């Protein structure tokens, strides 16, 4: 019997309100992969008004409906300093869709009000002008992050996100809208924190990204020399390949 000396501490932020389209699949994938790798996985669910724990190795936040996102804005702002400290200390983070938007500088609503964000990513997001469609569809992208490679997912967002001068994109879309449907960028990266519009759920179907986040979380806790021998993940690989075929067939082509 293999003891499990290593454990990552996972915080899932607003899991009840910020998981409108299956972002909990990301947590499910982390838990299952950790079991497979013999790594402990300690999950803390943090809701509105709850205190963040002292430390975390991996933070997950998903997307919500507009009404839900407005509810968390103040609470998230109160947690902003801690979240930025965690990011500076190289904790791994994955912020999807609405969570990604709120980890930026601000979200400008259709009425022109600016909802302040956590300012972890140098990005700004604006609500679509009247008559502009939502960005909905299959995505195939290639990540700028080493070892992550091809990404598959599904996006569904109204807001258009623009990278500031200090922001690095997470990926380039081959099929799909990405951040704004214009510049070909998808998401943002800051240290070990990743923001993205990809549902799918993202981590189950992108095993390289999943393993990279788990490794980053382990290194946050146990130091940079830690490594993991990761066996293949055949169910995930087949689902990834199948989704890639679908995205190539019907995803909006990025020119």
């Amino acid at each position, binding site marked *: 019997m293999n003891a499990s000396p290593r454990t990552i501490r996972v915080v899932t932020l607003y899991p*009840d*309100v910020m*998981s*409108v*389209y*299956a*972002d*909990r*699949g990301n947590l*499910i*994938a982390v838990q*299952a992969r950790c079991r497979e790798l013999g790594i402990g996985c300690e999950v803390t669910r943090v809701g509105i008004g709850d205190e963040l724990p002292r430390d975390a190795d991996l933070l997950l936040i998903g997307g919500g*409906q*507009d*009404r*839900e996102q407005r*509810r968390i804005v103040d609470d998230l702002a109160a947690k902003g300093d801690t979240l930025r400290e965690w990011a500076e200390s190289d904790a791994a983070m994955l912020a999807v869709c609405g969570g990604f938007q709120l980890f930026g500088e601000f979200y400008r609503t259709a009425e022109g009000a600016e909802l302040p964000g956590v300012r972890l990513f140098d990005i700004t997001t604006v609500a679509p002008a009247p008559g502009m469609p*939502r960005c*909905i*569809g*299959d995505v195939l992208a290639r990540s700028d992050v080493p070892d992550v490679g091809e990404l598959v997912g*599904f996006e*569904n967002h109204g807001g258009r996100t623009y990278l500031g001068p200090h922001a690095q994109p997470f990926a380039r879309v081959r099929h799909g809208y990405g951040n704004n449907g214009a510049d070909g960028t998808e998401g943002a990266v800051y240290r070990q924190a990743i923001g993205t519009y990809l*549902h*799918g*759920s993202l981590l*189950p*179907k992108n095993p390289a990204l999943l393993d990279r986040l788990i490794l980053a979380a382990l290194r946050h806790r146990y130091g940079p020399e830690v490594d993991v021998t990761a066996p293949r993940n055949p*169910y*995930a690989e*087949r*689902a990834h*390949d*199948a*989704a890639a075929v*679908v995205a190539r067939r*019907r995803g909006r082509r990025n020119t």
Partner: protein
Amino acid sequence: LRRGGGTALPGLVANTVAPALIGSYARQLGYGTATITGTNGKTTTSHLLTAAAAAGGFRTLANRSGSNLARGVASTFVDAATPSGLLPDAREYLGVFELDEAAWPALLPQLRPRVAVFLNLFRDQLDRYGEVDSVAEGWQRALARYREPIGLVLNADDPSVALLAEGARGPIVSFGVEDPDVALSEAEHAADARFCRCGATFTYSAIYMGHVGMWRCSACGRTRQTPLVAARDVRLGADETRFTLCVGSRSLGIILPLAGLYSVYNALACAAGAYALGLSLEATTHALLEAGPAFGRQERFAVDGRYVRLLLAKNPTGLNEVLRTIIAIDQPFTLLALLNDGIQDGQDVSWIYDADLEHLAGRPVTLVVSGDRAEDLALRCALAGIEPAVVERNTARALEAALARASAGARIEVVATYTAMLEVRELLARRTGQQAYWEPAHSEVRA
């Protein structure tokens, strides 16, 4: 009424040529129209209500399942009408229309229903409908603008439906489950109406599914009202459901030949709709006992001595309910699960992560996974702790694999998204050379 093929083409023409056409037809129906909308249960409820109306002596005009947009409604009328636009014997007819929840607001002023049944509102195909909140707001705004009297039939247990009673101008008939014994032991992840209109969070003394249950808002005092039409003493079986149907002060025992608590809600919606239409309780009872399943919804087929049941599941709450129904079966069974990603299924298959497939883990289930997105579903199941025995994208080969793994007398439960259900149903009908044995006898009176 004339009966035609019911294709979408006449509807397409009608819709393009004259958007107000639906109104001119609907006005001819002597007994008016009832609409049924909501995320889950539209087809079964319409099927039951049509049967109740028939038992009550009405002639009915109903649209087909899956044709519940403006085009399908127009097509139903055009199909039944003479070339001059008259519906023969229209004075004797009652219209029963299931309507897509997003299409309902635009059809309200055209159909001008006497009775509007609202079932529930769950997250469903966000790639097509947008957010759940915007659907609820669409209903609310349409009702606020609408100046004519309309009877509302509302699910008391779903706050996003029950709150439509605020500001209603006509009579309201509410329905709900009055039996905390069938409540869930813990809340499901897929709950979609967490917040009251005042902004506070709902609290529940019992949750029946998703966000449906005995709810209240402790901030503003809004609370579930005791429903006029209720189910008590609910006994959930593998193939049928027993409950006491209470309508006001009258009550009687029902053996519904449909499984699952969600079927009880459909039965209650039918009973409440029938009450609002002035149908007798006897007519309702007849429908609940005799009508059986609607197309592709718990239809049963005998295939070489195996018992095959077809269950539709197209969103997290629907799939949770179906899973809850089949894991109650007290014998090993084969599960053929199919996930398609067409427009009618929802192109985004993420939703399978919002359903609690974990409930299957550790059960005596042989799993065959299929559909356009078989690999996605296989991964989801593996993550939930249930490894598929077979992953086969091709529907026909997957069905054969499921049949080969089930011995004589064994059960095969087929759980499928919409277009996958159509494919399997076709295969089963062809293989058995017969209709589903619960095919409703009166289906030919539906347009």
